[in-house]
Each structure stands twice: as C-alpha cells, then as structure tokens.
C-alpha cells in the first residue's frame, strides 16, 4: 500500500519499491529466558508498529513482566534479538534501554517520595555536574509537555504530596524528558479511579498522535478493547496470538489467555433478600495518628444478598473489614442478627467473630489469610482450631482429621497442586485464595466478609471464585464484598455502596447505575454533574 504524501519525491521512491517498509518500533525475535527450571519466556516474537498502542495481556505468570523487564534491561535474555526501529540493539541495563528510546512506567512507581517533581524528572538525566541548569531546562520542558498532553503537575510539589494519578504523570514525564519514543506501561490503571484512568487514556492517545509507540500491559480486557490498536496474548511463557483489537472480542481474548472458554459475565439469578443479618450504625474509627478513618458508617445487609463496597483503595474499606473481622477498635454500633458486637477491640477477635457466624476472607491473603510457610492442611484449619472435629482429646489435635478435611477441600475447590503438604507460599495466587475461600465458605457462615477476592488471581480462577460467592449467597448467607475492581463490584453485587474518605457516598443498584456515575462517587462527588 502506498501512502500519499505531500512530497512527490517520496511517492516516486515508493513506486520503485514493491512496498514501503516502515520499520517496526520494536521487533523481538526468539526471546527466551529461564529462571532455573522455569522457562518464563519461550521463543517470543512480537512486532509493534510505530505510532500505535499495543496491548499485552496474559494471566499472572504468563511472562509479560519478564518480557518487559528484558526490554528495559532488568534481565538479560538467554537468547533472541531485540530490534528498535529496524536496528538491532543490545540492551544490557536500564541506561541502554533509555538510550534506545524506551521509557517504562512501572506498576509500583520508581519515584523518590521526598523529592520534588522536577528533581525526580531530572534524576539520572542531568545535563552536567551542577543541578541548576538542568532544573530550569526541565521546568521549561515540563510547561511545554503539560500544555501539549494534559500532563499538568506542579513542578515544585513534593511527590509524596501528589495523588497517585499525578505521581503516574510524573513517571510519564520522566520518560518523555528522556526523549522516549516507546513507552511501556505496566498495569497502569490498577491504582487509578475510573476518571483518572480515562484521563490517562486521553494522554496516551495524545502521545500516539505525536508518533510515540505505547505498550500497555494489563489484565483488564475492557481497557485493551477500549484503547489498543493491536493486542498480543501471552500464555505460560509463550506468545499465543497477536491480533488487531478491532477484529477481536473480549471473549476471544479471554479464551486465548486461559486456553479454554471463560465466562466473563457472572451468571446469577436475582437476589432474594431475607432478614437483616448485619446492621451498622454510626461506625467510627480513629487511627493511631488521630485521623478519623471511618466517619459514621450506616449500612445494613440482609441474608441472601451481596453488598458490594466500591471505592479507591484507602478510603476506609480496610478499616471497615477489620472492625467487622474483630481486630480493630471502633465506636458506634453493629448488630449481628440483632445482638450487638463488641467493638472495644479488647474482648473481640477473629475467634469470637467466627463463633458468631462471621467468616472473613481478608484483603491481604499473604499477611492475614495464610501463614505462607505452613502447609496447606494447617492453613485450612486456622481460626477454627477449637472445632471439636479437629480434636483427638483434651490435649492433642487430630492431625488425620484435619488432613482429611483439607484433602476434601482441595478436591472440592480444585486447588492445584492437589497436595495438602505443599506450603501455602508454593501455590499460585488463585490457588492460595481458594484455600482461604474453602476454609471460610465451607463453614456456611451467616455473614461472609470478603476483601479483594480476586486480587492477583488468574482469570480462570476468578470465574470459579465468583461462582462460589454467588452459590453461598443462594444458600442464604449475607455477603459483604469489598473490591477496588469496579467490574467485579458491578457484576457480583446485588447492591452497591460507594465509600469515599471514610464515608458512604451513597447506595446504587447495579442495574440502575454505570461505571461513570460510580466513578464520580468514588472520587467524592455525590451529585454527578452532566459534564464533569
């Protein structure tokens, strides 16, 4: 195909060649990388066209991060070739990646928190031994860039005082200051509100228009469908497909990722709410620094329904779960099946909460849900040690009974590897979560507290976990779901409450609201405006 340009000379040149070969921004050929016995990347080949947004999706451990680390010089590939703009390059460390025009925005920002924005931007890219000239040059460039791409940040603000969205802009500006032509973003929206994510995508579109090439690594299919031109799918260290986004669908991509058909929509019947199980009145929590983390929460929850708590991380959801779970003191009142719960933090703990029929799948399974060095069978009984069925006699526990119970759970929840002696840390994220879930759900609790049920969990396991939650609801349990994944809240909840800054901003029914409205509430705007 010959593209018509204003200059006739190029046109003639094009007519001589059979097809004008515009070199790819990035071309990887036969990249392989092993860590001991694990092959993280197997013979990867990928071509990324200049001036496009190219998505890379895959489950956890599919090898996306390893591949990008090779591209940014964090790891050296065992074999393979990297070509940038058609020229073979040898990327040995971050500085050679930067020299090749690659900029990377990590999932966990690489910023010095008590430095100013300007200092962060020039770090490593200073012009000379003295700072002053570099700082004023960066200030000027920052002004140009912020006008051009909606990338405004206060150059003199300390990074620790910026919102996460602004910190991310600093990361992008850092890459642009180093004149990156290729920008790699690793899970960029994980920490953003929907509005911030939209803003980010507008920035990326702007960069694309200026001819920059963008690689977007994400596990969110919706984002892939919305913003990318092409998408590559990785599975178990291999590149299984590269397709034009417009020619594909979320269902097809999910199937490519997992290797089998996946239900993206949670199948559930309308809820049949029964009696009120949980009644929260005027709940307040003040933390050790005297900051009020919960500022008067009123909520109620009925048997047979799922109440989803939406919100950006850090707006009091964790505190709410911890108070209900029995390990944080609070003031106010909580009625569990009509009887008050102890909120003093003294006479309450996970054990007494469990005795009241409250099961808890904590947000952080590594710190609170499991003891990672202990085998699966021991993890399966934690919190329920007192259960008579685990006791041999007054002195000893019945290990055989616990192991049998664990084996049953491993089978029913399809936990892999199916070996109850494997330490918890050796399971994948999804299987770890299933261990916690099996322990809590099989108690048939009256109330299940569940925080971030699918954080770091593969798409195949997500489907299973969602089914289990809905099944528990259908058996008549009340479920309090806290998640920062708005998609998850929307698809699982029967009712949605939005939390912001320790308050409930309002309640919505999932069928009567949308992501935009919830997103505005999550950002603290209780009355969504027409065009905000």
């Amino acid at each position: 195909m010959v593209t018509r340009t204003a200059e006739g000379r190029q046109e003639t040149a094009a007519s001589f060649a059979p097809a004008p070969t515009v070199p790819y921004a990035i071309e990887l050929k036969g990249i392989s990388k092993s860590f001991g016995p694990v092959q993280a990347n197997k013979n990867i080949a990928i071509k990324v066209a200049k001036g496009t947004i190219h998505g890379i999706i895959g489950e956890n451990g599919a090898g996306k991060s390893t591949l990008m680390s090779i591209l940014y010089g964090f790891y050296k590939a065992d074999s393979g070739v990297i070509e940038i703009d058609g020229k073979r390059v040898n990327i040995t460390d971050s500085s050679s990646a930067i020299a090749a025009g690659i900029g990377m925005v990590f999932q966990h920002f690489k910023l010095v928190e008590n430095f100013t924005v300007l200092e962060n931007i020039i770090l490593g890219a200073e012009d000379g031994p003295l700072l002053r000239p570099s700082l004023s040059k960066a200030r000027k460039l920052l002004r140009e860039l912020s006008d051009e791409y909606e990338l405004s940040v206060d150059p003199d603000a300390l990074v620790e005082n910026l919102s996460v969205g602004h910190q991310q802009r600093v990361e992008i500006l850092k890459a642009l200051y180093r004149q990156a032509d290729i920008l790699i973003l690793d899970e960029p929206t994980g920490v953003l509100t929907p509005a911030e994510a939209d803003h980010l995508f507008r920035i990326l579109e702007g960069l694309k228009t200026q001819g920059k090439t963008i690689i977007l690594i994400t596990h969110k299919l919706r984002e892939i469908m919305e913003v990318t031109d092409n998408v590559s799918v990785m599975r178990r260290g291999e590149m299984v497909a590269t397709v034009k986004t417009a020619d594909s669908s979320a269902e097809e991509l999910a199937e490519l990722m997992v290797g089998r058909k996946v239900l993206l929509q949670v199948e559930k019947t309308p809820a049949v709410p029964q009696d009120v199980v949980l009644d929260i009145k005027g709940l307040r929590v003040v933390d050790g620094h005297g900051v009020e983390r919960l500022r008067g929460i009123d909520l109620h929850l009925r048997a047979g329904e799922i109440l989803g708590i939406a919100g950006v991380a850090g707006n009091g959801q964790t505190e709410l779960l911890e108070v209900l779970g029995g390990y944080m003191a609070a003031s106010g009142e909580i009625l569990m099946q009509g009887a008050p719960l102890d909120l003093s933090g003294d006479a309450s703990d996970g054990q007494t909460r469990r005795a009241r029929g409250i099961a808890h799948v904590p947000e952080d399974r590594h710190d609170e849900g499991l003891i990672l060095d202990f085998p699966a069978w021991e993890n399966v009984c934690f919190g329920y040690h007192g259960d008579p069925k685990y006791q041999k006699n007054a002195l000893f526990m019945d290990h055989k009974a616990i192991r049998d119970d664990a084996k049953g759970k491993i089978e029913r929840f399809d936990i892999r590897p199916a070996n109850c002696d494997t330490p918890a840390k050796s399971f994948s994220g999804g299987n770890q979560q299933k261990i916690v879930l099996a322990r809590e759900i099989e108690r048939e609790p009256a109330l299940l507290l569940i925080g971030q049920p699918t954080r770091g969990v593969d798409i195949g396991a997500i489907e299973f976990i969602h089914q289990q939650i809905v099944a528990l609801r259908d058996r008549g349990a009340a479920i309090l779901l806290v998640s920062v994944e708005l998609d998850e809240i929307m698809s699982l909840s029967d009712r949605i409450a939005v939390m912001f800054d320790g308050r409930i901003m309002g309640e919505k029914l999932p069928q009567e609201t949308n992501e935009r409205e919830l997103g505005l509430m999550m950002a603290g705007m209780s009355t969504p405006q027409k065009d905000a």
Partner: protein
Amino acid sequence: MDYLTILQILDSTVRLATPLLLTCLAGLFSERAGIVDIGLEGKLLGAAFLAGAVAYVTGNIWLGTLAGIGASVLLSLLHGVASITFRGDQLISGVAINFLAAGLTVVIGQAWFKLGGRTPSLPREARFGDITLPFADQIADVPLIGPLYAELLSGHTALTYVALAAVPLSWWVLYRTRFGLRLRAVGENPGAVDTAGISVVKLRYQAILIAGVLCGLGGSFLASLAAGFVKDMSAGRGYIALAALIFAKWKPYPALGATLLFGLLEAIGNRYQSIKLGDITIPVQLMQALPYILTVVILAGFIGKAIPPRAGGQAYVKER
C-alpha cells in the same frame, strides 16, 4: 564566670567538636546513600592508630593523616564489600568493623612498639600546629571582638578549619550537584536510581569512600590531639557522632550544631571537675558522662521525630 572563661570553654568546645563533626559528616554521606554506618567508631579508632603510628615513625603528621585516611577507607571498603556487594546486614558488618578495629589496633600496636598497644608520644613537631589567623595578635586587645577572634576563632589546627569548611561544602554537594541528588535518591529509593540508569552499587561505594576519608581525618585529629594512640581512645565518639547525626536529622548544618552541643558538654565536663550547687556536689563522673547521657536521650527518641533515609539499612536487590 567571666568573658574569658566563656571564650576558653567555647574554644575547647570547638576543639572537641572537630572529630565529632568530621565523623558525623562521614556518617551523613554514608547514611544519606542508604548505608547505615555503625562502624564509624571502628574507623575512627583505626584511623587514629595508623595516623599516630605513621606520624611517630616519619615525624610528619600529614603523612600520618594520609595513613589514617588509608586505614579508615580500607575499613569502609570492608563494610562496602560485605553490605553492598554481598548484600549483608549493614549493622552486623558495622559492628564487626568496630570489634576488628578495637582488637587489631592493640595487637598491631603491641607488635610494633611494645608499649602495651599504645604508640609512643608524638613530639610537638609530629602533631598539628595551631594556625594563627591573620591579625589575631594585632587585634587581640580590642575589647570583646579581639579576644573572640584571637581566642575562639584563631589558634586551631588545620583540621578544625577543614571540618568547619566541610559543612557548607557538604551542603552544597548534597543539594546543588548532580552527585548529591543521586546520592540522596539512592538513600531514599534505590529502585528509582536503578531504573534511571544509574548504578546503585557505584554510588553507594562513592558515598562510603567519602565517609572513609572524613572519618580518617577525624581519627588523625584525635591522634594529634592526644599526642599518640592509646587503646580505645575514640571512647565512643563514633556512636556520639551517630547520635548527633540523628539529632541533626541527617542534614549538614544541624550536624554542626549538634556536634558543637556535644563538644560543649564535653568541654564543661573537662573544665569543671565538680560543681557545687548549695550543699550538693555534682560528682565529676556525672559531668564527664554528660555527652553520653545526651546520646542515650537522643537515641531513645526524646528529641522530636527524626525520619531517617527511607532505604537506610537495606541492601538493594534488583526487582520489578
């Protein structure tokens, strides 16, 4: 207490604060780069020993100082190899250096000089001479300002002036140069430095080398002040400097203030062997313990909240 007495105490304060200040700045460079330096004490001692030994043998304190710096830098490198290259625990490696220096100085000292681990006394010409600032003698008789200039400001050894000059210089290097920016960054978030394409390891070695040089100057000053090396002569000054560093919140100018405060306490303790307050006599031991008591108070966190460099004490492991 008359004006001259005050000046004499202050003069002695500056003298006693000099090794503390040099050591404190050494710790500042090291810790700002994320390397906790509990081994300051050992480096100070090692430097004092070799400076004393070489100054005695050669009769030249400057050669001694060079040797002192060499000893301190060598110990710094040991710390670096253990905690930067091999990512060992910085505290343990620092403590090891303190033990090593305490033992080696005595053993080697005994082997060389057969004086029970000390060096022979340094003759006057093998010590730092006092530098009289210009016009000090001429204006000494001018009331107020004269004695202030002649007694307090003039008449210190070269290293005291070097230490005082090192304060603004350190500030300038830390806050106005590329090297300083990177140094401060590597102590806060080495990941940011690494992804910016700068070698974390190289930066941290540079930092501890600077620390080694400054500590070496401090040790040489001690050897000259005491006219030779005596077993355990650093007497906890490395730890006091560390306390001063925390008190100063890892900043150069406050470090000057903090070390002067410690110097003042030591000077008072030295001058007033016992103080009578009415019927109560404060014993000399208490007076001499003052700097150490303040150290405990500071380290126990009674004085405000000091936020150390965030990456301090952690070896940097590349991760995504």
